[in-house]
């Protein structure tokens, strides 16, 4: 950002401050931190009210949940346990399977819908009929259909991301500026050139938008499927099962630990997508 115009002697002195100083002076940072601290404090006080003033002082809603300090302690206790990290692994595996399958099938399907008019006419209506059904409504049907729990979870996860990705790819491919196509045509591009050099890279931003939304849905679905199906038949069954199991076992602190964990997991995966998007689309990073 070399935005220093030619400043001659008559103007006041140019002052430079370090990035860190600038960052620390920013009121937004302080307000944000303050807000989170207040949030945690209210939660802590609210949750512990009954401990301090007796049972009759149990506050509604907030008084029924564990305080943050207790959650933190529970977390410290659970971090060394292999089972906890197994849950992470399992959930990530499921998310990646379903999400990967949805990308693999959804991108070509979406592009085909965008590129070929007849293909779109035939396949888009059934797609639109199925799309409004919430992915979780498919859970029982897929439990019946697929031989193992694992496969049915994968299927529902796949569905969750698939519709979002297809819609985004289709929308992205159809809004590519026609002038890019025309310019390429003038320069002698074949149909394949148009597809590989213009349509595909032109759709990339929408693919990543779709992927980011799809990733969010995938986590929701994996979690729900894990909770509904009882965590699979073999071993511990992912973070969703971890939450459900803790709830059944009456360990509320662990429930909240599970919630935070899955929040972090979701955040990590969407950050990964954003990072990958920045890598693959350097022209979008610039401004």
């Amino acid at each position, binding site marked *: 950002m070399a935005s220093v115009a030619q400043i001659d002697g008559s103007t006041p002195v140019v002052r430079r401050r370090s990035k860190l100083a600038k960052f620390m002076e920013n009121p937004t940072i302080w307000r944000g931190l303050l807000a989170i601290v207040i949030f945690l404090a209210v939660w802590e006080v609210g949750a512990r009210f009954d401990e301090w003033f007796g049972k009759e002082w149990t506050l509604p809603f907030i008084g029924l949940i564990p305080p943050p300090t207790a959650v933190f302690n529970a977390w410290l206790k659970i971090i060394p346990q292999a089972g906890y990290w197994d849950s992470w692994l399992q959930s990530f595996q499921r998310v990646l399977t379903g999400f990967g399958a949805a990308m693999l099938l959804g991108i070509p399907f979406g592009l085909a819908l965008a590129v070929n008019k007849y293909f779109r006419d035939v396949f888009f209506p059934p797609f639109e009929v199925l799309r409004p059904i919430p992915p979780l409504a498919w859970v029982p049907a897929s439990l019946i259909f697929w031989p193992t729990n694992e496969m049915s979870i994968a299927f529902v996860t796949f569905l969750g991301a698939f519709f979002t990705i297809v819609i985004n790819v289709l929308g992205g491919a159809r809004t590519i500026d026609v*002038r*890019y196509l025309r*310019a*390429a045509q*003038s*320069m002698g591009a074949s149909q394949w050139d148009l597809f590989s*050099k213009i349509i595909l890279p032109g759709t990339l931003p929408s693919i990543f938008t779709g992927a980011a939304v799809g990733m969010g849905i995938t986590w929701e679905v994996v979690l729900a499927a894990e909770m509904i199906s009882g965590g699979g038949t073999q071993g511990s069954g992912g973070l969703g099962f971890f939450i459900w199991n803790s709830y059944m076992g009456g360990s509320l602190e662990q429930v909240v630990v599970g919630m935070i964990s899955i929040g972090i997991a979701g955040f990590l995966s969407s950050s990964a997508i954003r990072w990958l998007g920045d890598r693959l*689309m*350097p022209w979008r990073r610039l401004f």
Partner: protein
Amino acid sequence: MQTAETTQTPGSAGAGKIGAEAALDAHGVGKSHLQLQNVSKAFGDEWDRQHVISDMSLDIRPGKMTVVVGPSGCGKSTLVNLIAGYEQPDSGVILLDGNPVKGPGKDRMVVFQETALIPWQTTYQNVVFGPKLRGDLKGKALEDEAKRLLVKVGLGEFMHKYPLQLSGGMQRRAELARALINDPRVMIMDEPFRGLDAMSRGLMQEFFLRLFEENRRTNLFVTSEIDEAIFLADRLVILSNRPASVRKVIEIDLPRPRHYTMLNSPEAFAYKRDAMELLHEEAMKSFRTSSSSSTGGKQGFTSASGH
């Protein structure tokens, strides 16, 4: 101006390097003759047929800068699309050196409104895009030619930047380079400097003129700015309002090379007055045909031309 049609300009060395194909052409480097004969085009539903171009005949002479002006929305872009081959005329023919135009091709390069540089390719990649696709220039030769052109348009330092990193004026120049490397026989400029502010616009015009005056490629330049038109043109074509046809062709007899101060010469002013009068008349005509309400004339006129 006097020599343009017959002599091979020495400045076209780069173009000469590019292809044997162009050298074989009877009309010499980039100097083709483009003719429109009774071209018509309409769009829309049967009850609401919009005749955009009707019975237009136009001669775009070799080695000349032909500038087309008309009120906005009069069908200039459709004209460009027809000549470039993106759309087909309903009737009439478009001939390039006597051969009918069938579809898009590298012999007619278009520089689009705003800019149509492909945003996911760097400036350099954009420039080499065409030759690479066709494979008619390869390896070192392509690299050298691309660099030469980029340096020529003053973007030597910017070739590995993405289009969005460049200023508006730079984008236009990059697009010029992208068109030139294909060594087109006709350059088609569709309001290329639109959206630039008046001052960068003036500078771009001067720059573009220098490029043109160097090797006098056949050029069709579409614009809605009269000053720009007079400054650039050998032949000024004024279009009628919708449906567009040729209203008048004015030969602009200002000496080349041109300088921005020429715009303030009495000759240029005279041309301008003539052109403005015709355009005003056309615009008023369009108001009369389109205004359905009974309100004052002026306002309908504005609404017609303001979109």
